[in-house]
């Protein structure tokens, strides 16, 4: 299998779906000039009608994706950075999430809204958002946030073919990571199915997006101390693979939720609550969250980097759960 990057996986998924289905088209700000390498060669291959540069008008073109979907198209919107979804909250929450419901099933909105979570690179608070949990609180939106190239490709292709609106949150810390990715044009990862990225016996670590890679590093480090982490990547936040998480926690009896988003009302909080509600009898220790604290993200790298979940914080949380003293 070819080894490709996360960004190349996005490019491949889009190209294959544009090739397969004439109803698929793309729009977004400056997508023709291929800023991040996810639309390489698209204008030449698919034409300017299907690869559309938009005005800087997120509420306008994201809402237009909703309208186009309602009349039978299958738009992929590239919203660039997830921070740019905020101007479009009106259309995402009031139109895209609710039209199917409020009109009693008359509307169908097959569309994908892609955005990158561009954190950890001194872009300051307005460009560093990881806002998926805000949308988890809005019924009617499916949410994918994979952590490796194969899952990215498979989930994005599944999202394009899904008949419901899907938000794709793409973690910038994963962009250049390579993985073996199938080149079968029908390769897909089912939306709503999590994956065990590393099997273990002592503690279940449920990690979101780029947090998965940090958790895997922590697991490797703790292996040397005789602490075995099972790392689960839900891959999809809505619908959430609760069964996979609960099965693992019932096996290990301990859980840490790792989430690069802010702590309050995070995906980590939702997962922790689910574990406490449905697997309380299996727990041998409190459920812990390792998240970004509820402060904004500063520009200066010296004070930005330690705010995200780190290997050190996950290791410390794991030691606490199994009762190993922290090194002085």
């Amino acid at each position, binding site marked *: 299998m070819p080894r490709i990057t996360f960004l190349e996986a996005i490019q491949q998924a889009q190209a294959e779906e544009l090739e397969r289905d004439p109803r698929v*088209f793309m729009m977004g700000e400056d997508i023709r000039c291929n800023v991040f390498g996810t639309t390489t060669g698209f204008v030449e291959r698919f034409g300017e009608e299907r690869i559309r540069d938009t005005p800087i008008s997120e*509420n*306008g073109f994201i809402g237009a994706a909703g*309208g186009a979907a*309602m009349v039978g198209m299958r738009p992929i919107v590239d919203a660039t950075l997830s921070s740019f979804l905020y101007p479009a909250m009106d*259309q995402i929450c009031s139109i895209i999430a609710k039209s199917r419901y409020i009109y*009693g099933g008359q*509307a169908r909105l097959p569309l994908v809204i892609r955005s990158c979570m561009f954190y950890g690179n001194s872009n300051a608070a307005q460009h560093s958002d990881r806002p998926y949990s805000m949308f988890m609180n809005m019924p009617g939106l499916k949410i994918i946030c994979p952590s490796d190239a194969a899952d990215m490709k498979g989930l994005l292709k599944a999202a394009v073919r899904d008949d419901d609106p899907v938000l794709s949150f793409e973690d910038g810390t994963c962009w250049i990571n390579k993985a073996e990715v199938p080149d079968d044009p029908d390769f897909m990862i089912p939306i709503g199915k999590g994956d065990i990225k590393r099997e273990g016996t002592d503690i279940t670590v449920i990690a979101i997006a780029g947090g998965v890679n940090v958790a895997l590093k922590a697991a490797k480090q703790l292996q040397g101390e005789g602490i075995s982490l099972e790392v689960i990547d839900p891959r999809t936040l809505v619908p959430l693979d609760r069964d996979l998480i609960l099965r693992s926690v019932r096996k290990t009896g301990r859980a840490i939720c790792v989430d690069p988003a802010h702590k309050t009302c995070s995906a980590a909080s939702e997962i922790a609550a689910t574990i406490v509600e449905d697997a309380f009898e299996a727990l041998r220790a409190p459920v812990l969250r390792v998240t970004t604290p509820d402060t904004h993200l500063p520009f200066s790298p010296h004070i930005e980097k330690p705010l995200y979940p780190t290997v050190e914080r996950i290791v410390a949380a794991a030691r606490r759960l199994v009762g190993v003293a922290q090194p002085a």
Partner: protein
Amino acid sequence: MSPIGDNDRRLEKYRRMQRIRQFETKAESMHAAGEIPGALHTYAGMEASGVGACMALRDDDYMVGTHRSHGHPIAKGSTLRPLMAELLGKVTGVCKGKGGSMHLSDFSMGSLGETSIVGSGGPVAAGAALGAKLQGLDRVALCFFGDGASSEGAIHEGMNLAAVWKLPAIFVCENNRFGMSTPTSAAVAGEHVADRAHGYGIPGVIVDGQDVDAVEEVVREAVDRARAGKGPTLIETKTYRYRDHAVNMGRDLTPRGPEHDDWVARDPIDLYRARLLADGVDSEDLDAIDSAIADEVADCLTFARDSAYPAFEEAFDHVFVDRLPIPADVAAHV
């Protein structure tokens, strides 16, 4: 004879305006009696605006409307039974009882929503027009919005997008002089909403919103232009809302001035009836239409009252294509 002057079409315009008026008159009294839950925003006084615009559309053209949603589907040709059932929250309602008075959207008639977030239909209409264009269809998308919505960014973004991409869209601002309690003069900078068209390099047209023929004529020109690939038009229908922002609120929040009587004196249905009679239409033919509509309204009411409420499962359907399960702790207490 021009399409606007064609006799059957003229009677159809009269019929649809009467249908809206009688449907809403009945709905208002039922709302007062407590039979219709929620808020009820009526279209009375504005019938010529919706009917004139929709008569310029084909059945397969798209339309997006507003929370003042009763007039638009009837203007586009919807039948009354699913609309009245929706007002009563019944499963036979056009939205299966999940939309109610603010969302009477009939997709079978080309509607893509009657959306109750002011201005939010603008991008949807632009997107539907884009979809039609990409599919090589010659359909157009018409967006109704109010004078209040003219201050919303979504409307501007929708118009700008439609203009820059030359999409087959028509933006119809139904200026009924009030955004809830706020007069247009206190909310809209510049004299006319239609003047804003210049900023997008598209035609801006003002029309007497009480004259159904005049509205149809300007919308038809805009539709022809849109179908010909020449892009969108902004039309402002100058009209008037007779009733409160929402009826039966206890008091009318709308600051009425002396012009109120002038507007009521130019009732769109009365004006059109007088024109038809002056043009030689037999008054008995118009009376027969009025009476047939009274029967339709009585029939839709019986249908709605006899219909069942939705099963509880319906609350979990249509969030996604696949129905959600009812959570066990909720199901145990239904």
